[in-house]
């Protein structure tokens, strides 16, 4: 394996929504050297690859940022960081305007005002939002982009970030990257649980199957503190295509109906988890399948839906046209997805301060990988990218020293990669390992097959089985760099699985139906108005409970909390 050694001021891991926007923000300081390492190609990588439907987080006229904080707090049943939510909400509109300047098409009315959808959304054409961001990144003279480089581990010494290791996903090249500050923006984790369509269409999932939780895993392995991994995100989606439902539910709008045609959403409540739980319960009690009631919409509306889905989830439009029956003739069947860990929808991720600095000095996190601040969506990820970039600029003022290279550690990592490339194929293949992990999580840690429910006995078995699988995965063999990528994607997910299990075990209540449905403790309990945090220490996942950071408070790291 060839070695490439790079020194930079700032390393951004993952050139997605948050990572690209951070790079654009850092582009204003021309003497700061910035490097983006991206496992795919920033033009179409991550959540935005196919496009998005709307701006989901925006402060519409007559509302203030605190309203958005209050909404998220209610939806998350109190387990949110109000300081993070507020600093994000204050920037939602500014980043939206910047995106429009960069070329994003936003619908406006005759008075040149953005057209809203409900209380918090605005209408756009988001098909090319990622190429727009990528073009803006390319214009920054001080930003270099390394496409097709997969990062696997941080370089950390005495809880101080120094850079990261990775490899080229096509060529036999090992990357040793040193940086004064690092931003982790690798998105959330999909593919932990057995998906809705486990066969040929196993990757027809909602969250990108290529966001495999690398950023979480690297942080966990480096001893960074994580928060709220037990608040899994399970989406309510169109059956089979797993396409978003918001376009129909809020756009048309359409109500949730059971097989008898009854509107059931009002019975269970309207938070994100309640809407899902309602659907799961209607199915379990024999009143499924469930639908979004679209039958009878006009052909004009139907045509607009065809277009809207082509701009975001084209398989849904194909599905309608192939069936010869569109949503005007047929209600749209809905189902819950497998659980994801996504800090931009729920609150799982790195435990950060208001600058989005993690508990590792000089390591920042933004977007779906950062915790405490749910309902970020696109604009929240952009806002966090900007906040982190600004904080990094001031950090660099006082941290000018170039990190010292560590040849011994680098050699060790390179040898780890080379071992996979040279060892003989054992009985376990990469495919089997993935299937096995997903089956364990599905059956023992509250997946689709158990209606998302679990108990302590099952979770303990899940952990034991995941640990065994981790051992076995050390014997996986890679024929080429493409295989190596897939081995590390499994390794990352297994690490994340262990932390999810530990968090599910720790929260002894059911705060959110379905998201964390603990059958040993089926009710909500005041006692658990706390954050469940964790750190990996000497190979064990230790749980730390922390008091809520509510309105007016701001959490700051101290030496004792690092």
């Amino acid at each position: 394996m060839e070695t490439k050694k790079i020194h930079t001021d700032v390393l951004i891991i993952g050139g997605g929504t948050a990572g690209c926007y951070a790079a654009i923000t850092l582009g204003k300081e021309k003497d700061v050297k910035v490097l983006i390492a991206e496992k795919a190609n920033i033009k179409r990588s991550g959540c935005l690859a196919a496009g998005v439907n709307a701006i989901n987080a925006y402060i519409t006229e007559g509302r203030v940022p605190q309203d958005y904080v209050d909404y998220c707090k209610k939806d998350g049943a109190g387990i949110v960081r109000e300081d993070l939510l507020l600093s994000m909400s204050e920037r939602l509109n500014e980043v939206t305007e910047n995106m429009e300047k960069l070329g994003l098409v936003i619908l406006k009315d005759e008075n040149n005002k953005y057209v809203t959808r409900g209380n918090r959304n605005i209408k756009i054409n988001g098909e090319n939002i990622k190429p727009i961001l990528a073009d803006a990144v390319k214009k920054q003279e001080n930003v270099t982009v390394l496409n097709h480089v997969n990062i696997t581990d941080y370089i950390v010494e005495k809880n101080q970030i120094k850079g990261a290791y990775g490899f080229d996903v096509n060529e036999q090249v090992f990357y040793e990257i040193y940086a004064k500050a690092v931003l982790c923006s690798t998105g959330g984790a999909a593919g932990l649980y057995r998906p809705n369509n486990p066969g040929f269409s196993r990757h027809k999932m909602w969250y990108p199957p290529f966001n495999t939780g690398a950023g979480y895993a690297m942080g966990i392995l480096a001893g960074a503190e994580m928060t709220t991994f037990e608040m899994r995100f399970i989406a309510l989606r169109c059956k089979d295509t797993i396409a978003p439902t918001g376009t129909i539910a809020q756009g048309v709008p359409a109500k949730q109906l059971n097989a008898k045609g009854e509107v059931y959403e009002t019975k269970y409540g309207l938070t994100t988890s309640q809407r899902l739980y309602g659907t799961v319960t209607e199915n379990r009690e024999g009143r499924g399948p469930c639908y979004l009631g679209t039958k009878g919409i006009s052909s004009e509306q139907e045509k607009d839906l065809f277009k809207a889905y082509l701009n975001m989830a084209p398989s849904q439009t194909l599905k309608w046209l192939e069936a010869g029956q569109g949503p005007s003739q047929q209600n749209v069947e809905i189902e819950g997805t497998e659980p994801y860990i996504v800090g931009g929808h729920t609150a799982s991720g790195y435990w950060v301060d208001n600058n989005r600095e993690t508990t590792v000095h000089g390591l920042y996190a933004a977007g779906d990988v950062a915790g405490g601040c749910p309902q970020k969506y696109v604009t929240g990820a952009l806002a966090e990218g900007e906040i982190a970039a600004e904080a990094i600029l001031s950090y660099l003022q006082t941290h000018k020293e170039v990190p010292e290279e560590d040849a011994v550690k680098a050699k060790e990592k390179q040898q780890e990669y080379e071992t996979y490339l040279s060892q003989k194929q054992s009985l376990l293949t990469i495919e089997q390992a993935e299937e096995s992990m997903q089956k364990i999580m599905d059956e023992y840690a509250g997946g689709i097959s158990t209606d998302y429910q679990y108990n302590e006995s099952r979770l303990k078995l899940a952990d034991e089985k995941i640990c065994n699988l981790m051992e076995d995965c050390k014997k996986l063999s890679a024929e080429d760099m493409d295989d190596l990528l897939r081995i590390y994607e499994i390794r990352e997910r297994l690490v994340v699985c262990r932390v999810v299990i530990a968090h599910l075990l720790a929260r002894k209540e059911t705060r959110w139906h379905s998201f964390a449905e603990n059958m040993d403790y089926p009710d909500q309990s005041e006692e658990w108005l706390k954050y469940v945090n964790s750190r990996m220490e000497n190979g064990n996942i230790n749980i730390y409970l922390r008091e809520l950071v509510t309105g007016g408070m701001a959490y700051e790291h101290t030496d004792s909390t690092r």
Partner: protein
Amino acid sequence: MSIRIRPDKCVGCKRCIEACPGNLIKLNEQGKAWIKHEKDCWGCTSCLKECKVDAIAFFLGADIGGRGSTLSVTQKGDRNIWKVENPAGEIQTIEVNKKDANKY
């Protein structure tokens, strides 16, 4: 759900290979693109949009209701022209202007 690449049309420009967010497409010895990880396609259609010669089509697997129709897209200026072709060869097109925002 996955994609199909037509070797007779592919000119080996590698644009699809560069763009796929999952690194699923490779170049074979004949210099043509092929999908190595057929079951790992997310259906984002990035590769379709990158291909200048319309060599890539997208389809739904039978496990999610696919019955042999394909979806492809060509770009003309600001317009994406989407084409659905059923097994009988019948074609439906939908044009989406990138300058028009979604109504929903």
